[in-house]
Protein backbone atom coordinates (compact mmCIF):
# COMPACT_ATOMS: atom_id res chain seq x y z
CA UNK A 1 0.00 0.00 0.00
CA UNK A 2 2.72 2.47 1.04
CA UNK A 3 4.93 1.46 -1.86
CA UNK A 4 2.04 1.99 -4.28
CA UNK A 5 1.65 5.52 -2.88
CA UNK A 6 5.38 6.12 -3.28
CA UNK A 7 5.37 4.94 -6.87
CA UNK A 8 2.25 6.96 -7.69
CA UNK A 9 3.91 10.07 -6.22
CA UNK A 10 7.05 9.55 -8.27
CA UNK A 11 5.09 9.02 -11.50
CA UNK A 12 2.96 12.11 -10.80
CA UNK A 13 5.94 14.42 -10.21
CA UNK A 14 8.02 13.12 -13.10
CA UNK A 15 5.14 13.31 -15.57
CA UNK A 16 3.69 16.68 -14.53
CA UNK A 17 6.83 18.71 -13.97
CA UNK A 18 9.48 16.94 -16.00
CA UNK A 19 7.54 15.27 -18.84
CA UNK A 20 9.29 11.96 -18.16
CA UNK A 21 7.32 8.71 -18.23
CA UNK A 22 8.91 6.08 -16.03
CA UNK A 23 8.55 2.34 -15.92
CA UNK A 24 9.13 0.32 -12.79
CA UNK A 25 12.53 -1.38 -12.75
CA UNK A 26 15.28 -2.40 -10.37
CA UNK A 27 16.96 -0.18 -7.80
CA UNK A 28 20.53 -0.04 -9.15
CA UNK A 29 22.71 1.90 -6.72
CA UNK A 30 25.81 1.66 -8.88
CA UNK A 31 24.08 3.27 -11.85
CA UNK A 32 23.22 6.48 -10.02
CA UNK A 33 25.36 9.62 -9.95
CA UNK A 34 23.25 12.50 -8.65
CA UNK A 35 21.06 12.46 -5.56
CA UNK A 36 19.05 14.64 -3.22
CA UNK A 37 17.92 13.90 0.32
CA UNK A 38 14.92 15.27 2.22
CA UNK A 39 13.88 14.66 5.85
CA UNK A 40 10.25 14.54 6.91
CA UNK A 41 8.68 14.91 10.34
CA UNK A 42 5.16 14.63 11.66
CA UNK A 43 2.84 11.65 11.77
CA UNK A 44 5.49 9.99 9.61
CA UNK A 45 9.16 10.57 10.36
CA UNK A 46 12.09 9.63 8.23
CA UNK A 47 14.34 10.42 5.31
CA UNK A 48 13.96 10.07 1.55
CA UNK A 49 16.71 9.86 -1.03
CA UNK A 50 16.21 10.42 -4.76
CA UNK A 51 18.90 8.95 -7.01
CA UNK A 52 19.43 9.14 -10.74
CA UNK A 53 21.88 8.90 -13.59
CA UNK A 54 23.62 12.12 -14.57
CA UNK A 55 21.91 12.30 -17.95
CA UNK A 56 18.51 11.70 -16.33
CA UNK A 57 19.11 14.75 -14.12
CA UNK A 58 20.12 16.74 -17.20
CA UNK A 59 16.99 15.70 -19.08
CA UNK A 60 14.73 16.56 -16.15
CA UNK A 61 16.16 20.07 -15.86
CA UNK A 62 16.03 20.64 -19.61
CA UNK A 63 12.42 19.45 -19.81
CA UNK A 64 11.20 21.47 -16.83
CA UNK A 65 12.73 24.70 -18.04
CA UNK A 66 12.50 24.15 -21.81
CA UNK A 67 16.25 24.49 -22.14
CA UNK A 68 17.51 23.35 -25.53
CA UNK A 69 21.21 23.94 -24.89
CA UNK A 70 23.16 20.97 -23.55
CA UNK A 71 24.64 20.36 -21.15
CA UNK A 72 22.43 22.19 -18.67
CA UNK A 73 24.51 23.98 -16.03
CA UNK A 74 25.36 22.08 -12.85
CA UNK A 75 23.65 24.77 -10.78
CA UNK A 76 20.33 24.23 -12.57
CA UNK A 77 20.64 20.43 -12.48
CA UNK A 78 21.33 20.49 -8.74
CA UNK A 79 18.43 22.83 -8.07
CA UNK A 80 16.00 20.77 -10.17
CA UNK A 81 17.10 17.52 -8.52
CA UNK A 82 16.48 18.98 -5.07
CA UNK A 83 13.12 20.38 -6.11
CA UNK A 84 12.13 16.99 -7.56
CA UNK A 85 13.03 15.27 -4.28
CA UNK A 86 10.97 17.78 -2.30
CA UNK A 87 7.97 17.37 -4.63
CA UNK A 88 8.12 13.56 -4.54
CA UNK A 89 8.35 13.46 -0.76
CA UNK A 90 5.63 16.11 -0.36
CA UNK A 91 3.31 14.32 -2.76
CA UNK A 92 3.84 11.01 -0.96
CA UNK A 93 3.18 12.58 2.45
CA UNK A 94 0.00 14.23 1.14
CA UNK A 95 -1.25 10.74 0.28
CA UNK A 96 0.11 8.87 3.32
CA UNK A 97 -0.68 11.52 5.94
CA UNK A 98 -3.85 13.41 4.94
CA UNK A 99 -3.83 15.16 8.35
CA UNK A 100 -1.20 17.51 6.95
CA UNK A 101 0.97 17.17 10.05
CA UNK A 102 4.12 16.19 8.17
CA UNK A 103 6.75 18.79 7.37
CA UNK A 104 9.72 18.62 5.03
CA UNK A 105 13.27 19.82 5.42
CA UNK A 106 14.97 21.70 2.62
CA UNK A 107 16.48 19.26 0.10
CA UNK A 108 20.23 18.62 0.10
CA UNK A 109 21.89 17.79 -3.21
CA UNK A 110 24.74 15.25 -3.54
CA UNK A 111 27.05 14.85 -6.53
CA UNK A 112 27.97 11.44 -5.16
CA UNK A 113 25.02 9.07 -4.93
CA UNK A 114 26.91 6.66 -2.63
CA UNK A 115 27.38 9.41 -0.04
CA UNK A 116 23.70 10.26 -0.28
CA UNK A 117 22.81 6.61 0.15
CA UNK A 118 24.94 6.48 3.33
CA UNK A 119 23.20 9.64 4.54
CA UNK A 120 19.80 8.01 4.11
CA UNK A 121 21.03 4.81 5.78
CA UNK A 122 22.38 6.78 8.75
CA UNK A 123 18.93 8.03 9.74
CA UNK A 124 17.11 6.09 12.47
CA UNK A 125 15.05 3.56 10.59
CA UNK A 126 12.81 0.63 11.13
CA UNK A 127 11.27 0.22 7.73
CA UNK A 128 12.89 0.96 4.39
CA UNK A 129 11.54 0.84 0.85
CA UNK A 130 13.64 0.96 -2.29
CA UNK A 131 12.05 1.55 -5.65
CA UNK A 132 13.75 1.56 -9.04
CA UNK A 133 12.59 3.06 -12.32
CA UNK A 134 13.69 3.20 -15.93
CA UNK A 135 13.09 5.78 -18.61
CA UNK A 136 14.65 4.33 -21.72
CA UNK A 137 18.34 3.98 -20.90
CA UNK A 138 18.06 6.32 -17.90
CA UNK A 139 17.64 5.11 -14.35
CA UNK A 140 16.14 6.54 -11.19
CA UNK A 141 15.74 5.18 -7.69
CA UNK A 142 14.12 6.25 -4.46
CA UNK A 143 14.69 5.14 -0.86
CA UNK A 144 12.16 5.94 1.83
CA UNK A 145 13.44 5.18 5.33
CA UNK A 146 10.96 5.51 8.18
CA UNK A 147 11.86 6.03 11.81
CA UNK A 148 10.23 3.51 14.18
Amino acid at each position, binding site marked *: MMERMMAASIFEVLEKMFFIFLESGDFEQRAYANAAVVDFQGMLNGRMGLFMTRSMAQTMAANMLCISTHPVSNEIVEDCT*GEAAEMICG*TFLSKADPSGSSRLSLPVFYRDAATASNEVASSPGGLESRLGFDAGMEKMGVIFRFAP
Partner: protein
Amino acid sequence: MSLQVLIVDDSSSMRRFIKRVIAMSGFRMDPCLEAPNGKRAIEILEANPVDLIVSDTNMPEMNGLELIETLHRDVGLQNIPVIVVTTEGTDPTKRDVFASGARGFVKKPFTPEELKKVLGEVLGTNHRGGECGDDGTDDGCLDF
Protein backbone atom coordinates in the same frame (compact mmCIF):
# COMPACT_ATOMS: atom_id res chain seq x y z
CA MET B 1 -2.35 42.95 -18.94
CA SER B 2 0.76 44.34 -17.30
CA LEU B 3 1.70 43.16 -13.82
CA GLN B 4 4.49 43.64 -11.32
CA VAL B 5 4.92 40.10 -9.97
CA LEU B 6 7.13 38.90 -7.12
CA ILE B 7 7.99 35.19 -7.20
CA VAL B 8 9.27 33.81 -3.89
CA ASP B 9 10.84 30.35 -3.92
CA ASP B 10 14.18 28.99 -2.75
CA SER B 11 14.43 27.03 -6.00
CA SER B 12 15.68 29.18 -8.88
CA SER B 13 14.34 26.56 -11.31
CA MET B 14 10.85 26.78 -9.83
CA ARG B 15 10.96 30.59 -9.98
CA ARG B 16 11.94 30.36 -13.63
CA PHE B 17 9.17 27.82 -14.34
CA ILE B 18 6.50 29.97 -12.62
CA LYS B 19 7.69 33.08 -14.44
CA ARG B 20 7.36 31.28 -17.73
CA VAL B 21 3.83 30.08 -16.94
CA ILE B 22 2.76 33.62 -15.99
CA ALA B 23 4.16 34.97 -19.24
CA MET B 24 2.47 32.17 -21.21
CA SER B 25 -0.80 33.07 -19.49
CA GLY B 26 -0.82 36.43 -21.20
CA PHE B 27 0.47 38.62 -18.39
CA ARG B 28 3.28 41.00 -19.20
CA MET B 29 5.68 41.37 -16.29
CA ASP B 30 7.53 44.65 -16.12
CA PRO B 31 9.79 43.41 -14.70
CA CYS B 32 9.29 40.25 -12.67
CA LEU B 33 10.92 40.33 -9.24
CA GLU B 34 12.37 37.27 -7.51
CA ALA B 35 13.31 36.35 -3.95
CA PRO B 36 14.69 33.10 -2.49
CA ASN B 37 12.86 33.46 0.84
CA GLY B 38 10.27 35.54 2.69
CA LYS B 39 12.80 37.78 4.37
CA ARG B 40 14.26 38.92 1.05
CA ALA B 41 10.74 39.28 -0.34
CA ILE B 42 9.86 41.79 2.40
CA GLU B 43 12.96 43.83 1.55
CA ILE B 44 11.96 43.88 -2.12
CA LEU B 45 8.37 44.83 -1.27
CA GLU B 46 9.58 47.78 0.78
CA ALA B 47 11.29 49.19 -2.29
CA ASN B 48 9.02 48.11 -5.14
CA PRO B 49 5.29 48.28 -5.89
CA VAL B 50 3.97 44.75 -6.52
CA ASP B 51 0.59 43.61 -7.91
CA LEU B 52 0.87 39.88 -7.16
CA ILE B 53 3.02 37.56 -5.05
CA VAL B 54 3.48 33.89 -5.93
CA SER B 55 5.16 32.16 -2.99
CA ASP B 56 6.42 28.76 -1.94
CA THR B 57 5.97 27.75 1.72
CA ASN B 58 9.04 25.63 2.52
CA MET B 59 11.91 28.14 2.44
CA PRO B 60 14.88 29.07 4.65
CA GLU B 61 14.96 32.15 6.91
CA MET B 62 11.28 33.08 6.49
CA ASN B 63 8.75 30.58 5.10
CA GLY B 64 5.70 31.40 3.01
CA LEU B 65 3.16 31.45 5.84
CA GLU B 66 5.41 33.73 7.90
CA LEU B 67 5.69 35.98 4.85
CA ILE B 68 1.89 36.23 4.55
CA GLU B 69 1.56 36.96 8.29
CA THR B 70 4.15 39.72 7.96
CA LEU B 71 2.32 41.20 4.97
CA HIS B 72 -0.95 41.26 6.90
CA ARG B 73 0.60 43.26 9.72
CA ASP B 74 1.66 45.96 7.23
CA VAL B 75 -1.09 48.30 6.07
CA GLY B 76 0.84 49.11 2.93
CA LEU B 77 1.31 45.47 1.92
CA GLN B 78 -1.70 43.61 3.28
CA ASN B 79 -3.83 43.97 0.15
CA ILE B 80 -1.34 42.41 -2.25
CA PRO B 81 -2.86 39.10 -3.40
CA VAL B 82 -0.73 36.04 -2.64
CA ILE B 83 -0.86 32.70 -4.45
CA VAL B 84 0.80 29.91 -2.48
CA VAL B 85 2.55 27.19 -4.49
CA THR B 86 3.56 24.31 -2.23
CA THR B 87 4.44 20.63 -2.02
CA GLU B 88 2.33 20.39 1.14
CA GLY B 89 -0.99 19.69 -0.54
CA THR B 90 -3.34 18.25 2.08
CA ASP B 91 -6.77 19.73 2.79
CA PRO B 92 -5.74 20.94 6.29
CA THR B 93 -2.71 22.68 4.82
CA LYS B 94 -4.89 24.28 2.16
CA ARG B 95 -7.27 25.53 4.89
CA ASP B 96 -4.33 26.95 6.85
CA VAL B 97 -3.02 28.72 3.77
CA PHE B 98 -6.37 30.38 3.02
CA ALA B 99 -6.89 31.18 6.72
CA SER B 100 -3.56 32.99 6.69
CA GLY B 101 -4.90 35.32 4.02
CA ALA B 102 -3.65 33.79 0.79
CA ARG B 103 -5.99 34.20 -2.20
CA GLY B 104 -4.87 31.19 -4.22
CA PHE B 105 -3.40 27.72 -3.67
CA VAL B 106 -1.52 25.51 -6.11
CA LYS B 107 -0.08 22.13 -5.14
CA LYS B 108 3.29 21.11 -6.54
CA PRO B 109 3.64 19.35 -8.89
CA PHE B 110 1.36 21.34 -11.15
CA THR B 111 0.73 21.75 -14.83
CA PRO B 112 0.97 25.22 -16.40
CA GLU B 113 -2.81 25.07 -16.86
CA GLU B 114 -3.39 24.59 -13.12
CA LEU B 115 -1.36 27.67 -12.20
CA LYS B 116 -2.88 29.63 -15.08
CA LYS B 117 -6.40 28.83 -13.79
CA VAL B 118 -5.60 30.08 -10.28
CA LEU B 119 -3.93 33.20 -11.69
CA GLY B 120 -7.14 33.99 -13.54
CA GLU B 121 -9.29 33.38 -10.44
CA VAL B 122 -7.12 35.53 -8.19
CA LEU B 123 -6.66 38.37 -10.64
CA GLY B 124 -10.25 38.21 -11.82
CA THR B 125 -9.20 38.21 -15.42
CA ASN B 126 -10.35 36.26 -18.40
CA HIS B 127 -6.80 35.43 -19.28
CA ARG B 128 -5.65 34.12 -22.64
CA GLY B 129 -2.36 32.37 -23.18
CA GLY B 130 0.34 33.55 -25.51
CA GLU B 131 -0.59 37.24 -25.75
CA CYS B 132 2.94 38.28 -25.02
CA GLY B 133 4.31 36.04 -27.73
CA ASP B 134 6.66 34.72 -25.06
CA ASP B 135 8.82 31.84 -26.22
CA GLY B 136 9.90 30.91 -22.72
CA THR B 137 13.35 32.33 -23.14
CA ASP B 138 12.49 35.91 -22.21
CA ASP B 139 14.14 36.73 -18.94
CA GLY B 140 12.63 39.93 -17.68
CA CYS B 141 13.20 38.95 -14.06
CA LEU B 142 15.47 40.79 -11.72
CA ASP B 143 17.39 38.43 -9.48
CA PHE B 144 18.04 39.67 -5.97
